[in-house]
């Protein structure tokens, strides 16, 4: 898989009088991985939330997989392709299994179709021993892994992960790192924000640095060259 997945022409957002996003251009290629770095408050979370359609912003021309889209309206087909995971993921007060099956149910898949997919996702995230624990009682790292499994089971084209390894102890961090590495190696594109050196230095990771709401590409792979609109 290759080629341009997502392009956005301008991205502006202000909270009151404070401008938190002021990016000229963003381009995400299919199957590639991007790390968003930048100081606290530089706009990383806000950018991911705008791309996920959870926050309104002034957005210029935008296309996904060659189709023009309005991020403000966020059509259903785009929802199926993009999954955002909060820095502190929220797990529904049901069960771990129901959490992972949630998006599949929302897509109208029958229990017979869901079951093997959920089982596979549980095995992937190594959370088989947590199935009987009430989700809200899981540790931060365990919640993060359930949330990653819940997102991955939907096979989106684009993952937006906000600081997936922040606030985790060494062991939980290693377990989450393994999952992130696996997501980045797979076919979907991944954009994740973090302050974690180990993730930033992963091979094939494109670096996007944010400063006061601006995005700088640090290794030229996301060069701000004009992008042909298909």
């Amino acid at each position, binding site marked *: 898989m290759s080629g341009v997945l997502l392009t956005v022409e301008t991205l502006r957002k202000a909270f009151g009088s404070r401008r938190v996003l002021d990016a000229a251009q963003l381009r995400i290629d299919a199957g590639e991985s991007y790390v968003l770095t930048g100081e606290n408050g530089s706009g990383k979370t806000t950018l991911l939330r705008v791309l996920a359609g959870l926050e309104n912003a002034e957005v210029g021309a935008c296309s996904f997989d060659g189709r023009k889209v309005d991020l403000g309206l966020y059509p*259903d087909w785009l929802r199926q392709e993009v999954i955002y995971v*909060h820095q502190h993921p929220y797990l*529904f*007060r049901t069960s771990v299994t129901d959490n992972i099956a*949630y998006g599949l149910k929302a897509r109208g898949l029958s229990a017979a179709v869901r079951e093997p997919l959920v089982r596979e996702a549980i095995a992937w995230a190594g959370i088989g021993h947590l199935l009987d624990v009430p989700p*809200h009682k899981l540790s931060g790292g365990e919640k993060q892994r359930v949330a990653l499994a819940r997102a991955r089971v939907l096979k989106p084209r684009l993952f937006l992960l906000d600081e997936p390894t922040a606030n985790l102890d060494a062991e939980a961090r290693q377990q989450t790192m393994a999952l992130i590495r696996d997501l980045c190696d797979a076919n979907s594109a991944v954009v994740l924000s973090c302050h974690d050196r180990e993730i930033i230095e992963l091979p094939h990771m494109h670096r996007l640095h944010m400063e006061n709401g601006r995005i700088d590409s640090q290794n030229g792979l996301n060069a701000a060259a004009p992008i042909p609109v298909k």
Partner: protein
Amino acid sequence: MDWLSTTHDAFALLFSGDRELWQIILISLRVSLIAMLIASPAAVAIGYFLATASFPGRRFLIVVTQGLLASPTVVVGLILYLLLSRQGIFGSLKLLFTQEAMIIGQVLIALPVLVAFTVSAVQGADPRARETAISLGATPLRSAWTTLIEVRFGVMAAVFNAFGRIVSEIGCSLMVGGNIAGVTRNIPTAIALETSKGEFAQGIALGFVLLIVALGVNFALAFAQGEGGMK
């Protein structure tokens, strides 16, 4: 009056299966349960909408609902009486002094309680719950349902509070029901009117039942919240 023997009579009435007494209890529960079945789905939907939508006048509506929480039931009864009486707009429906009229009144009394409690439950929900549902591809309807399930204890508190209020209200039931024996005589109207005629044992027995219902509802809520492992 001999309190001891009157209380004894009250329990004798209750446990001997006195037909008149149990009819009053059944009318009370029937009217209030039907009112809850009608009011709850609509009110929870309205409450969710008020808590999450953004449109001009939203805050105003929420404040009005909160204000109506404490509306005197006898005033609701009075307005309904005027609407349903023979000269009223809905006079031709001939609903005055029927259980249907009592149900309508109790629906009106329950609505603001249900809406206001649902609004605060949904506003108290973690915003990530709804965002997570949406990001995982839930339709607006499914994400609303998911959010309500996440705050189900708040929604249950709304339902139990509203039920407690209408099952024990007397003003409206008396105005539009009329305390007709076997038809619209419910627990509160029976206690108020029959006791004044000297039927102390019946009054005490009914008061006891009402207390049990009120306590039962609260225990059920506390138990459900405990089971839910809140916090």
